C-alpha cells in the first residue's frame, strides 16, 4: 500500500479485548492480529479518508518526540500487515 492511498478498514471486523492495552482482531484471512494502543489508533484512522501520510502525521503529532522516519516505517509496515490479513482495503 503506497503512502498516498487511503486505507479503509473492513466493516464488521470482530475485535476482542486482550488486556488493558491490547486488542485482538479476528482478521478476514483467519489470523488473529494483535493491536497495541497505537495500532488501534492506526486502524481507527483507516477510515477511507486519511492517507497513510496523514496517519503518519497525526501519529507524529500525538507521539511528540518520535522521529517521523521511524514512525513512517512502522506505519507502512503495520498497514501492509493489516492489508495482508484482509483487515483493510484501499479506498482511494
Amino acid at each position, binding site marked *: 500500500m503506497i503512502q498516498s492511498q487511503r486505507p479503509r478498514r473492513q466493516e464488521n471486523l*470482530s475485535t*476482542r479485548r*486482550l488486556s488493558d492495552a*491490547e486488542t*485482538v482482531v*479476528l482478521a478476514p484471512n483467519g489470523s*488473529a492480529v*494483535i493491536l497495541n494502543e497505537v495500532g488501534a489508533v492506526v486502524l481507527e484512522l483507516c477510515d477511507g479518508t486519511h492517507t497513510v501520510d496523514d496517519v503518519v502525521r497525526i501519529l507524529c503529532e500525538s507521539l511528540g518526540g518520535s522521529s517521523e522516519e521511524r514512525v513512517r516505517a512502522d506505519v507502512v509496515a503495520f498497514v501492509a500487515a493489516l492489508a495482508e490479513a484482509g483487515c483493510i482495503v484501499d479506498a482511494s
Partner: protein
Amino acid sequence: MRPIVRRALDTTFSVAADHPDLERAARAIVGCCPESQGALEVVWELDAAHLRAFRDGELLMEGLSSIGEIAAVFERDLYDVVVARAETSFMLHGAALANEESAVLLFGPSGAGKTTMSRALVARGARYITDEFAAVDPEGRVRGLPRALGLLPAAPPLDPATQTLQGTADAYDFVGRNGELVHNDFFALAPEHLRHVPIAVGAVVQLQHDPNGTPGITDLRAADILPAMWDERHRGGEGELEIAIALLKRVPAFRLVTSSVERACTDLASVWPIQSPRRSAPR
C-alpha cells in the same frame, strides 16, 4: 463382524470390519478411546472384500487399494467426524497431558515434537489426553481426541524412560496412490496412562524444536502466544476466540525451545509439574 464400540470427545461410535487384519488395524486406531455403553451416533463398516468403507450406511470411499488404505480412510474420517461433532470448544491442533491437578497444552507446527513430548511426559508420569486435538471448553477445561500414539516407545530419538510405557503396539502398511509405501505405527497406551475426564488447563506451551538453538523455557505474554496458538486452531469463529483469550488470561504461557527430550522435560517441569507433588497426610 463384531463391532468395536468406543467414545471419543462427544461421540459414541462403532467400527466393524470383515477381515481380521482390518479389524486389528481398526482396534489399533481406536486403541486409546474408552469403551462406551452409550447410544451409537456414528457407525463405520469396513469392507475388505470389496475394498470400500461405509459411514452410517452411506458409501464413504470405494476402489481402495488395500486393507491398509481402508484403515487409513477410516482413521482420517473418524478424526474429522469426531472433531466436527465436538461441543463448543476451542479446538487446538496440539497435545494435552495431565497431572493430578491440571493439564498442559503443547502446540507447534508439524515436527515441533508434540507426539515425542507426549510420549516422554507419559513415561515420566503424566496422563495422556491427546497428541492431536485438544478441546478447551469455556471454563478452561480440556478434553482430547485420544489418538493412539504414532511413535512406538523405543522409536528414535531413543528416550529410555519410554521403555516403561504400558500398552499395545501395532502397525500396518499399505501402498499409497502414488505408489509409495505408507507405514503406520500405533501404540495404544494402557488405561493407567490415559485421562478422559475434563481437567483445568494449567499452562499453555508453544513448542519450538531447534537442535542448534539454545534450549530453555521462557514466559510469553498472551499477546505473544495468541496469534501462533490461533493459527493452530482446528476451526475458528468469535466463540472460539473468546475461549482462547479467556484461557490465556487465566493461565501462564511459555515457549519451550527443545533440543533433547530429557532437557525439554526438565524445562517443562520447572513450570508445570509432570507429576503432582504428593500432598502430606492431613493432621
